């Protein structure tokens, strides 16, 4: 039996919008789960249903053997960290952390000890007497984390807690959250639309789209073995290059062909026997997804010669934009090679890492 079990969870808003459709999910104790998806995909709605802030239309939520579907938020023994921090401005840091404990009828000395302890863990001991308005965004979020830690809840929810922080702080608070999770071992559900956050934090990522789960898996699975075209397009910066092609084997080589504006175009994917999983699909139309980093500049001129249109150096890597299969594709090459727009280079594709999808259903082939 899973620690947290969502069974056919469903949310329909009064205006008829179907926000979450029959969501099934099992979470083990201590897992760090990230709900990832574009805005409006139902991830926040699901989180709010878990918190009890949104009424459940159908299905059930069972937490640690107890059905909490219709319980009030305070009866669920959960904690939450909000995007806006939601630390109470009229209370000091210590009062903010102690408020939930007071509501749990803890004795004063016990509260003081607990507050002191979590403040130490979160590195905010010096600010206990201050008001939130005297703290920076990062410090406020630490207060929110300390408050959530102090209640030792069964489930820790985080609703885009890093979105209001500036880019630099975001990374450091992200590391801090991961540290906290490793130490506390609290079962955590984290909602975000930022894939790098998701990949950095998650034990398992739940990719959501249109109120449904697209894929559940580890960062590796989600990135390299996408179940659906949506995930392939959503994950990755820049995302995978997509094209509907006809796959053929010509002279032992895998060739992806398509109709361009000025006649047929093709892309050589390498030797057919190097990627048997791909080769078995030869002869049919597929949707080809190629991540920018599995394309590299080849050594043999004459195969996949393309002209570079744009060069975007990023320091550690460089993004090239070129017309491949008559679409604008992105290619990621390591380092900062000496390339210029207008240059023609041969390209090689690591066929074992390309992903193919059914053009109709968008599911992985």
């Amino acid at each position, binding site marked *: 039996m899973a620690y947290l079990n969502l069974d056919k969870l469903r949310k329909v808003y009064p205006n008829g919008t179907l926000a979450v459709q029959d969501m099934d999910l099992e979470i083990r104790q201590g897992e760090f789960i990230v709900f990832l998806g574009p805005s409006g995909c139902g991830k926040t709605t699901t989180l709010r249903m878990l*918190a*009890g*802030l949104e009424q459940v239309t159908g299905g059930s939520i069972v937490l640690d053997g107890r059905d909490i579907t219709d319980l*009030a*938020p*305070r009866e*669920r023994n*959960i*904690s*939450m960290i*909000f*995007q*806006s921090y*939601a*630390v*109470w*401005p*009229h209370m000091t840091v210590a009062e903010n952390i102690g*408020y*939930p404990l007071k*509501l*749990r009828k803890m004795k004063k000395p016990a509260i003081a000890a607990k507050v002191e302890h979590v403040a130490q863990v979160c590195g905010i001991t010096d600010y206990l007497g201050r008001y939130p*308005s005297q703290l920076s965004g990062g410090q406020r979020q630490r207060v929110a984390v300390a*408050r959530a830690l102090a*209640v030792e809840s069964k489930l820790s929810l985080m609703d885009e807690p890093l979105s209001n922080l500036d880019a630099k702080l975001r990374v450091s608070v992200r590391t801090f959250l991961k540290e906290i999770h490793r130490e506390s071992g609290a079962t955590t559900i984290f909602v975000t639309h930022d894939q790098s956050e998701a990949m950095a934090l998650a034990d398992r990522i739940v990719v959501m789209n249109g109120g449904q789960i697209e894929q559940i898996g580890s960062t590796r699975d989600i990135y390299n073995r996408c179940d659906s075209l949506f995930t392939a397009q959503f994950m990755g910066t820049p995302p995978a290059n997509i094209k509907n092609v006809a796959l053929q084997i010509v002279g032992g080589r895998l060739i992806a062909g398509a109709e361009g504006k000025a006649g047929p175009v093709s892309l050589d994917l390498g030797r057919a026997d190097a990627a048997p999983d791909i080769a078995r699909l030869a002869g049919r139309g597929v949707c080809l997804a190629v991540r920018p980093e599995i394309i590299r500049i080849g050594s043999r001129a004459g195969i996949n010669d393309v002209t570079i249109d744009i060069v975007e150096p990023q320091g550690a890597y460089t993004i090239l934009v070129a017309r491949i299969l008559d679409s604008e594709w992105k290619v990621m090459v390591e380092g900062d090679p000496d390339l210029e727009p207008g240059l023609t280079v041969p390209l090689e594709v690591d066929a074992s890492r390309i992903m193919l999808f059914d053009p109709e259903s968008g599911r992985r082939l």
Partner: protein
Amino acid sequence: MSGLKGGLWSRSVFWLVLVTVCLMVLLPILYFLTISFASNYEAYQFPAKILPTLSYRAGIRYNADSDNYTLLLAKGADYEAVKTTSDRMDMSMYFKSQLNVILSESSVADLFSKARQTPGMMETRLRKNFFRNYVIFFILADGTMAALMNSLEAAGWTILISLILGGSTGYILARFRFRGRESFSATLLVVRMFPAVSLSLPLVIYIMKMNLYDTPLSLAIVYAVPNIALTAWITSSIFKGISVELEEAAMIFGATRLRMLMTITFPLAFPAIVASSLYAFLAAWNDSITALIMTNENPTLALLVYRTVGSSTIPNLPAAGAVVLLIPSLVFTFIIKDYIKQLWGGAKI
């Protein structure tokens, strides 16, 4: 204030405007205050004094031919004869009623005997009983203390009713979406369009049926009508400014909805609550028209002052009453001014 650095010219204009505006506001109040301390005699004098006087420069002359005494008061460089009598009691009464000078008959007799020994006019100084108008207003005017209590009670009820009904309306308008919410909040202000009289007259019938006629509570019910709408508007804008996540956090961390309201929402909305109670207080405190209709034996202080104005031809006694009426509102406003400031600027929510 950076405009102050803009050179002598703009600085002069700034101060000129500032001083003019201050004088425009303060001079009438000062004059009003002076009137409230003026004796009947002073109230009729022209030109009127801008500052209250503490004593009179006076003279008493013995008229040997008619064996009586003439009281003269300084007017500019000259003296003006104001009263001629031979009777000590008559003079004492005149001192008290017209000059607010309290002198016993024996003291008057002393003055008379001194005047008799002095050839021509005997100069003297008559000390004014400074607060006599107020004393008269409180002790001699009938039921002032009771009226003051009525006013306070009516104001208290008005605040309570406005806050409970208006505050919850404001909260609902801020937090819940429902059909016709926008038009509802707009129509709320329509209530304020009705003049107090047009509300009081029909309401008086119901108030009588409820056996509440001539009570402060009945007044509060009428005062609260326009104030509920205003309170709803003021509080809803503040409630909207309080992030919903602050409330949700409280509920997740173990608070019931009531507990959340008491410990999170209300403390954060405190400036709005205080501002609304100020409006409610002032509306109740300043009204005399509704009180005129709705009360009989138990008038409010404002009504009492209003009646004094009507019955007296000299403005000093009503002025004293008006100052008495003014003081509680001033005190109340000063106590809560910090919260109001928080509401209109620099609110940290």
